[in-house]
């Protein structure tokens, strides 16, 4: 059987689309984990990154930490958190959150630091208070990089949630692990392709969202490293 036949034989089988092990169920589990982890990561990482970016203090530590955390092996983090906190749903999602916070923080910080000092000065010059400067000038100007960070975090979570099936959660990763256990490559391949498709769709969604939300004046050559 060649690769495409593996996929079609599995994906076109109606039984794979029903029940607690069906594609819709696993997909919603996967999206659920992603949404929860991303929401909390943004809730924690965004204010932190903004505060550090605005005051300029602790920036070096933040950048160093964010880079260092890129070296963290996701499987290691998952197994440690689950090993300490036990098997269930909360520990793996905690691991997902921990891995998603650095990109969000780094993106927010970088976005705010990249703003021309003149702009911030001008804002202060017209009488804005510090929190107004942050909210009405710095953050809107930093949106491209902030979005870049959130987008990167989202992809990180989708990818890690796949691996998390190893420590017992559901989601699309289940197809890969269960398929390997019974040597059913059709299942493995279908699971992998579904995950890849999900990641691409999430990426495209974020690009679309960015276009909607970010002011057109900012999507110039200045915003490096975020557009596809």
């Amino acid at each position, binding site marked *: 059987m060649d690769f495409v036949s593996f996929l079609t034989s599995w994906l076109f089988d109606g039984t794979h689309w029903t029940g607690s092990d069906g594609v819709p169920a696993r997909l919603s589990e996967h999206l659920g984990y992603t949404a929860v982890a991303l929401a909390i990561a943004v809730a924690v990482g965004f204010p932190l990154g903004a505060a550090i970016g605005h005051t300029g203090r602790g920036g070096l530590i933040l950048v160093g930490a964010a880079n260092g955390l890129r070296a963290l*092996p996701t499987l*290691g983090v998952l197994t440690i958190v689950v090993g300490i906190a036990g098997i269930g749903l909360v520990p793996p999602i905690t691991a997902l959150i921990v891995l998603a916070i650095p990109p969000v923080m780094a993106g927010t910080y970088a976005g705010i630091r990249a703003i021309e000092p003149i702009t911030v000065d001008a804002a202060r010059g017209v009488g804005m208070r510090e929190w107004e400067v942050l909210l009405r000038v710095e953050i809107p100007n930093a949106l491209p990089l902030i979005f870049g960070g959130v987008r990167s975090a989202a992809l990180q979570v989708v990818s890690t949630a796949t691996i998390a099936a190893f420590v017992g959660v559901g989601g699309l990763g289940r197809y890969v692990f269960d398929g390997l256990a019974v040597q059913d490559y059709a299942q493995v*391949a279908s*699971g992998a392709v579904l*995950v*890849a498709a999900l990641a691409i769709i999430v990426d495209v969604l974020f690009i679309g969202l960015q276009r909607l939300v970010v002011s057109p004046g900012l999507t110039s050559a200045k915003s490096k490293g975020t557009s596809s």
Partner: protein
Amino acid sequence: MTWVFDHLGLLGGLTGTHVYLALVPLVVGLVLAIPLGWLASRSRPARAVLLSVSGLLYTIPSLALIVVLPGIIGTKILDSVNVIIPLTIYTVALLVRSIADALTSVPATVVAAATAIGYRPLRRFASVEFPLAVPVVIAGLRVAAVSNISLVSIGALIGISGYGVLFTDGFQLGFMTEIVVGVVATLLLALVADALLLLIGRLLTPWTRAGR
């Protein structure tokens, strides 16, 4: 910690495999990315296609790519090539953009001067344009190296050796020490790789330190 000393042989073997699985994609990825990056810096449509394909490939989750490739290119699933190829793809995806940007940022005056002196295009690329792009390439390599070192451990999920084995084993036995050793080893390896590349970058670009 006595566990570490008791198992130095095991850890040494795993380190060797891990380094190999992270290094080969880095080198092959660099070799592949240079001509692709050059192409992207020369032609706008090539740049568009190359960058969007790289972006796309980079988006695909690692485990998915690792298990899908065997089906597409026909390797057996326990082959370590299944980790090397996806990591090479990620490395190329990362570096193509940096190299393209680096080459386009070489000042036109410098390129013109080199041509005026009599450099042929290939020699000009090798002796002038690429060396000036080295700092950016090194920065990209550092990111790719650290990323690769972190990703190799995922191979353990399909039976490929490396530090990842410490994670799967430790998890099954409920043995936290083993997992922690694996994480620390990975971080240390990443630190060493990062420092080494930084050093190589400094050595290759003596002109950036001149006049200090």
